[in-house]
């Protein structure tokens, strides 16, 4: 946590070996810049909260504040009822409403697609929080109320590790990788034609919708 904060304070991308890529728009400056993406398969998500707690453990967000959460709903009528789960997090929007709302230009997008906030510029105005359609960011009291949110675990990515929520998912519901050089199961998922973004604003996260089960088809 302190590593990321420090990185943001220094305002540099050096830490990720992505020198010279600090400014959005220079995405192709380094040839091997990944374009990170996450796919969440709702047919695998059991609502177990492992991702929520793995993220909490890694990022140490203050009590009651989370970088990711599970939204649950009920559908149907007895006996053809079911619950449903939708993991929610910052979508790393392609056109982030938070960046647009910030009058201090504290929010930028890395070439890899991750939306980050410069802790030196942020003064905790909160316009971003109000603007986010996904309720994904918050003002963090542990950082003098500066904005905080998911950053795809930048410091883990730098070490060659997956984001905490992705590694922490027991059923593999969260797939993650480089959309420019997709491999393995992530790569296979990327070719699906049923991927859908979170309604509201599209970003680097997409979902495989929950299939209707036999119960729902019956009712």
């Amino acid at each position, binding site marked *: *946590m302190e590593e990321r904060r420090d990185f943001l304070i220094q305002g540099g991308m050096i830490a990720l*070996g992505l020198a010279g890529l600090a400014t959005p728009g220079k995405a192709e400056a380094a040839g091997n810049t990944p374009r990170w993406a996450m796919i969440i398969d709702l047919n695998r998500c059991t609502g177990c*909260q492992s991702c929520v707690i793995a993220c909490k453990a*890694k990022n140490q967000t203050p009590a009651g504040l*989370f970088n990711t959460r599970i939204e649950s709903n009920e559908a149907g009528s*007895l006996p053809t009822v079911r619950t449903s789960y939708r993991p929610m997090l910052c979508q790393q929007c392609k056109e982030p409403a938070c960046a647009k709302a910030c009058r201090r230009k504290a929010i930028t997008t890395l070439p890899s697609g991750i939306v980050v906030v410069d802790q030196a510029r942020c003064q905790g105005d909160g316009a971003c929080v109000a603007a986010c359609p996904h309720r994904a960011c918050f003002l963090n009291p542990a950082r003098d109320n500066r904005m905080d949110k998911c950053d795809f675990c930048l410091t883990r990515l730098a070490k060659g590790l997956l984001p905490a929520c992705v590694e922490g998912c027991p059923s593999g519901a969260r797939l*993650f990788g480089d959309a420019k050089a997709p491999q393995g199961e992530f790569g296979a998922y990327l070719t699906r034609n049923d991927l859908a973004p979170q309604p509201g604003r599209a970003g680097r996260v997409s979902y495989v919708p929950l299939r209707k089960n036999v119960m729902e088809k019956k009712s």
Partner: protein
Amino acid sequence: MKKAADSGNDKKISRRALVKGGAAAAVTMAWPAKLALAGQDAAAQPEGQKGGSRLDPDARVVHSVCLGCNAHCGNRIAVKNGTLAEISGNPYHPYNSMAEPAAYQTPVAETLALPSPVCGKAQDAANYLTNPYRLIRPLKRTGPRGSGSFAPIDWEQLIREVALGGKIFAELGEERTVPGLAELNSDAPIDPRDPGLGPKRNGLVFMTGRLQNGRQEFIDRFVKDGFGSTNRIGHTDICGLGFRMGNLALTEGKEVELKADPWGAEYILVFGANIYEALQPGINTYGAAVARRSAAGKLTFAIVDPRAQNASVHAHDWIPIIPGQDGAFAMGMIRWLIEHRRYNHRYLSAPNLEAARAAGFATYNNATHLVIDDPAHPNHGRFLRLADLSLAEDEKAIATYIVLSEKEGSPVAFDRLDRAVLDRAATLRDAKGRAIRVKTAFRLLREGVMAHTIEQYAAFAGVPAEQIAGTAAEFSAHGTRAAVCQYHGAGNYASGTYAAFAVAALNAMVGSVEMKGGYLSGGGGIGTWKKGPYNLTDFPGKRKPAGVKISREKGVYEKSSEYREKKAATGSGYPSRRPWFRFTKGGLSVETLSGIDERYPYPCGALFTYFYNPVYSTPGGNRYIETLRDPARVPLHVSIDTSVNESNLYADYIVPDVTYLEGHYGWLNPHAPALRFTGLRTPAMEPLTCRTADGRPFCLETFLIDLAEKLELPGFGEGAITDRDGGRHALHRAEDFYLRGYANIAAEAQVPVATATELAFVERNYPVSRFKEILNPEQWRQTCHALARGGIFSDYQSVFEGERFLHGIKRTVLYNEELATSRNTLTGERFPGTLCYLPPMDASGAVLAEKDRAYPFTVVTHKMNVHTQSRTSCHRWAMEIFPENFVVVNEGDAARMGLRDGDRVRLRSASNPEGVEGKAKVSRLIRPGCVAISFHYGHSQLGASPLAVKDAEQVFLGGAAVAKAGGMKGDPRLGRGLNPNLLSRLDERLANTPLVDMVGGIPDFSSTRVQLVKL
């Protein structure tokens, strides 16, 4: 040594070591430049992980087994600067890897970067470890039991007083002489009128809550082998005795845990198993496998449960059954299978193992075997044997069952035919021409099942008949790749033995027992602690426990003097004062406490409770407060635990224990289904409890060792352990026992010797390596190969030969003669030997749904995915997500009552008329007439309430943070919600103790009915 260095290029991950499906990890990233930390006040950082990972050069990494719940997944713990930095899964352990782990011989350096999951409970270990309400010094009570007044005492004083007793509470004005263990250390009979009950030693009752292998063997060495008491009793009953009784009956006691194989099944019928929130293996393993394969279209499953469960997200169907009626549904299904000839006839008509194997099955069933169904015959209720016909008395004649040939219908030895008659009644004649009436086991099952129509079963179960038929059709449409996953909800109630037997029998009906994708037992361990270079099982003076357990589990009432005297006086030896349980798996904690309460069949002399909270965790457990308070019933109570809970609040002494991060050495084998491995548990952190004068941590083992040495019990202290070269070694520290156990396991498993790299890995990273000189260098080096990987593992495919499971049982039964010849000791009547529909009843035989019909709602309870049992209110992150629990009410019921989310309600039961309060939550995911209340909440201790503990700053891990003038502060947030066990039905017929099943002693979790009132 830098872990990454030996993999060559530490920036790349070796492709060939990748786990299938984990390819997302194969990215190549530049390492970060060294980051200068901004000036931080480390103390201001939150507790728990402080960033960093297992790949950091200054991290210590340990592969071990998680004890966040009883699922026993592997874990991989990274520690930096003395704090937990990261917790992930163990890629070598099948439970973290969809049963296809990294190849065992893969060098550790190549697996460290591999992603591997654990669930949220494992992550919250950071908070479990640093729980400020943890005890670090031993406590003695300084007020009446339950007052919450305690003071720390010296370790030596603790040992002396527990060993020797005396007027140890004289300061409090208590003049009685408390018996120490020394007084119980005697071979004189505990009851001179009935020496068969055993010696005075049985007065030591040692109850174990969340026990594991490793510590179990250590405790047994003390209680059984050293002290000689038979009363080391576990908690299987409140855990999951119900479904185990069904399997006990199905397998004639050979195997109690079998479940559907989630990695191979096409169809799973889930009975009362909360697969996306609990179960063992847990959500990280079983739930994950079901979700993954269901998403891939390889598996469908249906849920039989009053609650739709979290798994309804992916389920094919929900059967919203009335609690306690799982047997009705299963028997309705079996009736349908019989009427439509959809049972596996080939399987059931094979009379012996060879015939069944030749037909492709892994087990055979005794469906064709003849049972003597003739009250005039001395062996009525038992299987017909050759000896009954030929009247020979040799061993072979007694061991040979009889079947009927299909051609002539004549009796033949069971091992002489490939097929036999399945469904028949007949009269045979013995060698003297006497008639014997017989029926095939299948015929008896059929008669049991046909007692009700499918419509009647549907009415009992509260579901449409079409659902019984449809489910039976689906269940029998997948060959042997269909099975049941039955767990605590289905069978943990009065009459649960027969419900569980019916559910288990479903698997036999389709022939899927011990078949890939079917109903599988676990494959056992690799290597054993019992054999090898060290003799850990025998020692001079080893005692052999005798007599009857205070719970009367596996006791034969008809051998007791109580029976004899009653019979002489009245002509009938029945009823016994409390039930005896001849036919049970055992682990009857409820009947142990009820026995202690009634001083039956003998009084308790000293109660030790380890990691156990019965007042909170037992349905109706608050009934035992009066038991625990009473020195006449419990003369001495010593608890070994990490905190003050609702039960040890009533203890005389509390011995502080370490958490699994700091201790709890052990060897952990698979739960059912499938798989074969031995996980090796060692700590990741040094103990946080205080120390003895010679530096050993306060914990279970140090306590038992010092107590044993004080009492001069055999098996502990100097020279207690011998090796195969005749050398003798002391047992003075926990590691003296466990490290030698690991050496035995590694030797027996013929594990290779660790490479220099991996030896260094263990020695640099594992706290246990401080004790390596306990073993000789060769043994240590071999053991390190296993320790480096967190155990000895194999994968899913390796335990099958084609479709057959290699390590399973050989025989299943539809009729159990041991059950059939056991009696209810309250009535003297025999139990039915095959399936029988029985609704939940109390000890007097009253049907509970009828008796309590003035209470319209039945309460069902369940675990949550972020919690386990009673001990996780300190899991801060789980409590952030779910700060409290609710009374979940069916939408229709709520509408009728004008109830909305958040409304306060009061629940009252027959046994708790005052009732408890809670908050309502309206849901479609619960059937009408039921309310669902999760467990884990409604605590009054574990930090929820203030306690008058002297020197609280010195006693609790949190020090000043939890201390105030006069004692420990309470945090009311830890006491939110309600505990449904406060409502549970007690049995007036049996001294108002918690309700149990008369066959197995199963406590009841599903028959408590309540009135629900909006406040």
